[in-house]
């Protein structure tokens, strides 16, 4: 499977707009990590202001490609000061004990064009789970942008325990959208 993906990547090489990305970070101002959950059936948007990204991406050598994202959970921007305080508490992220959420890739798969699938592990609140994240590259004004979205079930990571576990007031599924503007 890996070889097959690699083959596609090689065949597509001529048409590709992506060349390899060295180990590097992101341009914070144009990058974003937004999530959309639902409370009482209504979409609620929030975002994380600080996260570190380390990505090595070689379209011709996906096996050597690697990505790691570390999210500073305390940097959350939510509806109000009150909800920001609440979500840092024990029953939600428990940031005092688990300050970071980490996603680290284990394999890249080419899907054709500028689209890839990244298998990896997501760790939040001391719980690690396998996860597959879609990834698409675009070039905006000469800057390479990696983006995609994935749905996380909050109960998988015990985000919102006790009274907050009830999916009626806060839905299980949370969509996470990332947009990373990669440093040239």
């Amino acid at each position: 499977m890996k070889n097959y993906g690699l083959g596609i990547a090689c065949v597509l090489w001529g048409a590709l707009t992506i060349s390899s990305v060295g180990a590097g970070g992101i341009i914070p101002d144009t990058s974003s990590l937004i999530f959309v959950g639902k409370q009482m059936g209504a979409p609620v948007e929030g975002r994380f202001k600080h996260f570190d990204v380390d990505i090595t991406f070689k379209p011709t050598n996906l096996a050597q490609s690697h990505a790691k994202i570390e999210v500073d959970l305390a940097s959350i921007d939510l509806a109000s000061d009150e909800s920001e305080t609440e979500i840092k508490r024990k029953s939600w992220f428990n940031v005092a004990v688990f300050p970071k959420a980490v996603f680290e890739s284990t394999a890249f798969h080419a899907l054709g064009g500028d689209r890839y699938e990244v298998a990896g592990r997501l760790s939040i609140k001391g719980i690690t789970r396998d996860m597959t994240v879609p990834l698409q590259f675009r070039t905006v004004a000469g800057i390479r942008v990696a983006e995609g979205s994935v749905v996380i079930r909050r109960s998988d990571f015990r985000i919102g325990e006790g009274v907050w576990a009830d999916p009626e007031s806060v839905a299980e599924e949370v969509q996470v959208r990332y947009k990373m503007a990669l440093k040239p």
Partner: protein
Amino acid sequence: MNQYKYDTTAITLHWLVALLIVIAFSVGHYMADLDLSPWKLKVFAWHKWVGVTIFGLVLFRMMWRATHVVPPLPAGMSELMRKISGLGHLGIYLLMLAIPLTGWLHSSAAGVTVVYFNVITLPDLVQKNKELSNLFKEVHELLNWTLLGLVILHVVAALKHQFVDKDNLLNRMRW
């Protein structure tokens, strides 16, 4: 039909909206002081649904008002009193629109989309922005106190007409 009375549509809207405003106002105050909990989220949602209902009814009511002639005021009222009464009603109408609008803006700016009765998704009026959200919250609250002041004057005026001037003004708003 009695030319000294509002019609059934206007009377029904007046009392229905008045009742819903009392509910939205009381619920609003109750919920604002709650600690964050699933219950608070529920009450917030209900408050918004009542508020949006008021908004819709008031839009309809203003259309009614723009297309109907209202009964003439009691003959004994001075020119100044008529002006004050007219301005007062206009003020109440504007607040009945501005309050739901600022509530909706507050919600949008907080990043919370308003979904009417969990069915109809209203558009987000502004992008998520916490400072803006806090500002709209303050304005929403301030306008509510202003409305409370006007409604108290409104009720005192109605009672004064009824019991001091004895011009049976209340009858105009009775089915």
